[in-house]
């Protein structure tokens, strides 16, 4: 696999956006897009890449004519589709163009389909609106497109509701719906972000396949450089409503001109595992022995059922080292994290903290142990009590363990400095900070108690890639200074590669592979691990270095 390098200059320009300016509606106009221009040729894929708030989704919605009308308005510019200015069309004419000439698929396949309509009907609706086919003909056409997107058991799925399908299947339905009338332009707004990597890979190749077949122009919006490397012909890097840089994919990846692009590429974690560190002490600070959790559901009348959320987890972790637990959604990795934290009580096995089994301790017996075990959660917006000042949140733990308020505050100040936040942050509330800052506060709060073990549950997944890098650096720095052991739960192999000494790969509650990061990521033994690594987008490219990876 390598970067695309097709010459499409002979193909006609399908869509041409010129100087598009979008502002917020109302009296105080705030510019959201400040003169965006781009064009896409037939059969070409243009990636709009940028972090949150860069304006990439607004560009796509403006093109579809779907801007929320009481919030955002187009001030100036043109959007030409096959020469026709879409912005000048009447609402009903625009409605007519949608699906026929330009179509869109969205990020969340879980919510983008109407939950109360059968999926076949939802695809058929497009034909109802834009064609005059007979019922049988419509059905045949729908079945055909469903087959084109490689859905299994098409006849059954035709009569299914969205909730009866998997995420990948739903996204295929979305694609079928978008492409059934063979529009000239397909806008894909983060269509794979919510999917697991293995599904993501399938969807990306499906889009490429259909593009090839129908010559569709694709505007692909993503924040993921890996995805960009997989599919883009050309890239436009956006920030703050402007396109900073655009060009053929290879040009942008190899010789980024803009400093922001360089920074962005530099923050993409590499899939190359970190250099192995010596296990200095050898003594494990925390260990799991055959740990498992089974949920029992059902009531006295209903059938009883069991869900084995996780089982057979074993590991040893010594101070100063990091264990990664990697898996897709539903793999049970979070259950393991919560069991270790004793936020839930495991149903089998042991958790040895400094050699003591804490798996079944009562809340009061657990209290002295909690000091040594701290946690950082995924969502920085929910992990701090919004009603408490930072000072109150940070001192909560130490006060629980009898530290004086003054000492706790002094310690909080010291740690804030370490996580690069100003001292006056103490008096402020969480909403006054950005996501990255909050996550750093959450980390500082966790280390206030000088724990031996820190569990980071998807602690960087909700962050933009540049912020992600900062937080990972911070964790590494803390580990270097304090010798804390870190259990890092993630779905992202790149992140795992970057910071883990050891990796434990989970699938459906079960550990399928376990070992030093370098070995697991380089010479995966299990098929699943291999599939995961295979599916990691852009794995052939070293973004920081701007060159292909040599395996």
């Amino acid at each position: 696999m390598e970067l695309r390098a097709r010459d499409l200059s002979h193909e006609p320009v399908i869509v041409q956006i010129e100087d598009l300016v979008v502002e917020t509606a109302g009296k105080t106009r705030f510019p959201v897009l400040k003169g965006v221009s781009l064009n896409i040729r037939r059969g070409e894929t243009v990636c709009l890449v940028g972090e949150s708030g860069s304006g990439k989704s607004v560009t796509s919605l403006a093109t579809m004519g779907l801007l929320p009308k009481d919030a955002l308005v187009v001030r100036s510019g043109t959007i030409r589709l096959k020469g026709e200015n879409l912005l000048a069309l009447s609402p009903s004419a625009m409605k007519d163009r949608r699906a026929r000439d330009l179509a869109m698929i969205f990020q969340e396949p879980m919510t983008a389909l109407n939950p109360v309509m059968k999926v076949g009907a939802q695809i058929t609706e497009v034909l109802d609106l834009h064609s005059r086919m007979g019922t049988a003909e419509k059905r045949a056409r729908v079945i055909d497109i469903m087959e084109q997107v490689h859905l299994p058991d098409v006849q059954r799925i035709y009569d299914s509701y969205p909730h009866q399908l998997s995420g990948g299947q739903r996204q295929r339905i979305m694609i079928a719906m978008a492409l059934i009338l063979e529009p000239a332009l397909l806008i894909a707004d983060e269509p794979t972000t919510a999917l697991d990597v293995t599904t993501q890979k399938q969807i990306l190749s499906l889009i490429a396949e259909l593009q090839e077949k129908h010559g569709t122009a694709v505007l692909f919006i993503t924040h993921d450089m890996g995805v960009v490397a997989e599919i883009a012909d050309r890239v436009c890097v956006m920030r703050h409503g402007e396109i900073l840089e655009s060009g053929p994919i290879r040009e942008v990846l190899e010789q980024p001109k803009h400093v922001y692009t360089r920074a962005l590429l530099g923050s993409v974690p590499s899939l190359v595992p970190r250099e192995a560190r010596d296990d200095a002490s050898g003594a494990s600070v925390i260990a799991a022995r055959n740990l498992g959790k089974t949920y029992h559901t059902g009531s006295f009348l209903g059938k009883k059922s069991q869900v084995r959320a996780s089982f057979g987890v074993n590991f040893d972790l010594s101070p100063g080292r990091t264990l990664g637990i990697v898996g897709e959604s539903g793999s049970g990795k979070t259950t393991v994290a919560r069991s270790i934290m004793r936020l839930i009580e495991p149903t089998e096995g042991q958790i040895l903290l400094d050699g003591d089994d804490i798996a079944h301790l009562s809340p009061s017996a657990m209290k002295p142990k909690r000091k040594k075990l701290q946690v950082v959660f995924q969502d920085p917006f929910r992990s701090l009590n919004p009603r408490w000042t930072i000072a109150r949140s940070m001192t909560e733990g130490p006060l629980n363990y009898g530290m004086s308020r003054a000492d706790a505050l002094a310690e909080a100040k010291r740690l804030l400095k370490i996580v690069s936040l100003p001292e006056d942050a103490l008096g402020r509330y969480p909403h006054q900070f950005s996501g990255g800052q909050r996550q750093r506060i959450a980390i500082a709060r966790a280390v206030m108690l000088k724990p031996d073990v820190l569990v980071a549950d998807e602690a960087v997944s909700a962050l933009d890639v540049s912020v992600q890098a900062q937080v990972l650096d911070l964790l590494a720095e803390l580990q270097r200074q304090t010798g804390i052991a870190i259990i890092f739960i993630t779905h992202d192999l790149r992140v795992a590669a970057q910071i883990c000494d050891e990796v434990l790969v989970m699938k459906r509650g079960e550990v399928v592979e376990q070992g030093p990061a370098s070995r697991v990521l380089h010479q995966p033994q299990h098929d699943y691990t291999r599939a995961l690594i295979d599916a990691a987008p852009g794995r052939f490219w070293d973004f920081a270095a701007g060159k292909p990876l040599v395996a």
Partner: protein
Amino acid sequence: MTNIDRSAADKPLALRLLSMVSPAQTGLAPFIAAIMLLAVILLTIFSPQIATHDPLAMDPLMRLKPPSEAHLLGTDGYGRDLFSRMILGGRISLLIGICAAVVALGLGVLIGLVAGYFRLADAIIMRAMDALMAMPSILIAIGLVALNGPSIGSVIMAITIPEVPRVVRLVRSVVLTAREEPYVEAAMALGSSTPKILFQHLLPNTMAPMIVQGTYIIASAILTEALLSFLGAGISTEIPTWGNIMAEGRQYFRINPGIILWPGLLLTICVLSINLIGDAARDALDPRMKKRQA
């Protein structure tokens, strides 16, 4: 990556409440409502100063007089000055509303916290609440007034008790949701005790919905008081309320519609303002809490 804008819900309560006073934020309606409510409250607070007559002084020989200079809105069936009774009546009605809200919230929060946090109590408490909700509130209220006699206290109790299950359900659901919040789990990890989590982390979460619910209870309590009076289970005529003024005026509606319409108008303005402010508070406090509990 797209972040959902949660800023509105994350700000502390006071800040969020402040935002609702600004007309630029929420439109004019809450602003006007606040002014109207303030006017009604001032009118009732200063009713002794504003009243033209002693609202209790009766003169049966001067009954049911039409509006005149001496009696701005005329007189009632005992020859008492309607205007003076109406503004004093507002005071009692508002007092009943506020007391009912405070008592209902107090009881509801206490029971709701227990139900939300302790599994065992939950099943029993919620069945009892279901039973209370299944009984028509107005009938419970009439029954309770009959039980305790129509004093202010018993009317407040009668209005309050049917409101309690709604508050309990709300508090319980807030507690159940908040329990799952990462910051609550973080607090557990930080070694905070159950009472500390209950009262310092979970209880404040109920504040925003409780403020909103409280305004709605005030509004509905004022209406219920009027209904109780109308059905003959209200407070004594010696203590004027909007409800009993209207209830007494009911049979004279065709003779002098003002006896019902004026207090009715004032009551409507007051309840309307409180409801609008409740809506605005809800929008300001929690944009996600769109659905009004029925």
